[in-house]
């Protein structure tokens, strides 16, 4: 309900006017301790990822055979070293960078392909039958087999891992965008545009897409942790980032051999993966709640 701000009766205190969606969402996020905490972690992670080459105390491939499997706290190696004497901290820092690179690339691929397809499927009923069946097909296809196939054909690398993960995420994006497009299509303002002569492209571009951004945003925050985990899995299996390039997944896989002797080499990268994924998930949940149009109740 809007407030007539022109009327200035000093005796009357008016309730604050309804804020725009963006400020409302921001306010809700700011008030939610979990949102703030997870956002902080993510901000730190992003900064670390961006500045990784300068933050890492050692080059990640730098070996030191005199100092293999050193425990955390060893002078010069805050988090210890692995079996080749490489600094765990540096490798984790660069591993985080790699994970985020893959995640961003993967999700960007998924959105670039999934959003248009989702919009088309939601808006054009004829296209929907085709696209939805394709989506079902893709969902039925096991992600790992896709990744293995990809690696076999194109070779294992960071880029290919990102693409494989991205492709696996397309169906999820299509589903979500499609259902929002369906909902938006039936609203009166779309009908009004059509009555005024808008073409389908106009409606999609000017009305449906801008209104679907919130679901896309939420989907992205859900897709990123999945991509991070995906990268860890692929690299663990040797289908992603290839050693000696640092990756949280490869760190886990090589650490298997000496897990009992130097548990930190496995636990720490694992912890990093977990913290990243958890923070994105928690933030995504908070964002979804904040975007919920229903008023919050204290």
């Amino acid at each position, binding site marked *: *309900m*809007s*407030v*007539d701000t022109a*009327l200035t*009766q000093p*005796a*009357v*205190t*008016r*309730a*604050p006017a*309804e*804020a725009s969606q963006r400020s*409302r969402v921001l*306010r*809700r996020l700011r*008030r939610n301790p979990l949102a703030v905490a997870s956002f902080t972690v993510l901000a730190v992670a992003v900064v670390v990822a961006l500045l990784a080459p300068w933050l890492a105390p050692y080059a990640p491939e730098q070996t030191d055979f005199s100092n293999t499997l050193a425990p955390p706290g060893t002078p010069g190696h805050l988090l210890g070293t692995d079996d080749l004497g490489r600094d765990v901290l540096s490798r984790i820092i660069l591993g985080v960078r790699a994970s985020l690179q893959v995640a961003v690339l993967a999700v960007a691929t998924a959105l670039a392909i999934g959003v248009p397809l989702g919009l088309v499927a939601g808006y054009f009923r004829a296209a929907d039958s085709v696209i939805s069946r394709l989506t079902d097909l893709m969902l039925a296809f096991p992600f790992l087999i896709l990744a293995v196939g990809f690696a076999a054909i194109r070779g294992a690398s960071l880029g290919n891992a990102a693409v494989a993960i991205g492709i696996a995420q397309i169906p999820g994006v299509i589903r979500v965008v499609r259902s929002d497009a369906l909902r938006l299509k039936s609203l009166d303002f779309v009908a009004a545009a059509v009555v005024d002569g808008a073409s389908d492209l106009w409606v999609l571009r000017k009305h449906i897409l801008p209104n679907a951004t919130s679901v896309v945003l939420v989907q992205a925050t859900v897709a990123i942790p999945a991509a991070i985990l995906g990268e860890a899995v692929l690299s663990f299996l040797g289908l992603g980032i290839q050693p000696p390039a640092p990756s949280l997944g490869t760190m886990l896989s090589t650490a298997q051999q000496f897990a009992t002797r130097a548990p930190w080499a496995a636990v720490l990268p694992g912890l990093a993966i977990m913290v990243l994924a958890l923070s994105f998930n928690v933030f995504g949940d908070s964002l979804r709640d904040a975007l919920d149009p229903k*008023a*919050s*109740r*204290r």
Partner: protein
Amino acid sequence: MTTTAQAPSRVDAPPVLEVRDLSVTFQTETGSVSAVDHVNLSLAPGEIVGIVGESGCGKSVTSMSLAGLLPRSARIDGSVRLQGQELVGAKPSALRAARGRDIAYIFQEPMSSLNPVLTVGRQVAEVLQVHERLSRKEVQERTVELLELVGIPSPRERVKHYPHQLSGGMRQRVMIAMAVACSPKVLVADEPTTALDVTVQAGILDVLRGLRDRFGTSILIITHDLGVIADIADRVVVMYAGRVVEQAGLHELFERPQHHYTAGLLSASPTPGRHAGTHRLQEIPGLVPVLSRQPDACTFAERCPAASERCSSKAPPLEPIGVGSGPLQAHEHLTACWHPRGDQPPQSPEAGR
């Protein structure tokens, strides 16, 4: 269902529902909102009272607060006495016991109030099972009786139907049956006909009237539709921005509205015989305010054609006006206005464009 001789509401008997100084404030994420401010209300046995007002006036919040149906973010002050029992601040178990047995509700959207996966009979039976100790057979019989009471044809067959098999009017009748299953003394109907077609509306109002005539059920009907009020209410309460601005017997209110908001509402409603070519509907300029705190002033003043300095510096109390003579004075006529309209005709004629 309509009886020609209407059971008179016993205005002199002690009220079955008494609301004193009821105030409700909400804490929202943007600040506090004062939804209801010191509302006084009473309902005599067998009386039908209509609360009328536009969106934001607080009528629904008032009705929901009676049986504690508001969310936890609502702060309720004041007193609500149902047959002597205090409901504000009562223990949740006491409120739950009162709901359905002593006070029942029907709402606007029967489709969302009925469970789509249970048969109609099952849902009515559920109400009986919660509050009364009856054998299975007795419950079944009573269910059919109730459906018949609310005017559902072929009740024995209908008992087995699901909500989606019934039309909107039928579903609302089922809601009424569920509400009166345990013969509550007070029935609160919040916009019961708003979502229904006009030809169905009359039937529902008839059912409600019948309940009062046969069982002496007191009904509190909340609506924005003056026509519904004109049809069914004995007494009318007009609310604006959380406060009661006028209260009177039905005919008295329509013929001699004292508060300028009431008069505005009446003039804004199209009535038979007035066409756009020769008349103009009276508009009330401005908007209903959303207040975080109720001021010591008349909140309608800024939109009122008769406002004065006094109106914005002191809140007018709800007081009886000078009582006139005649059969229309069965109820007191109260208004909260420094400049009541007196004997001015209800609609300033704006004929002749």
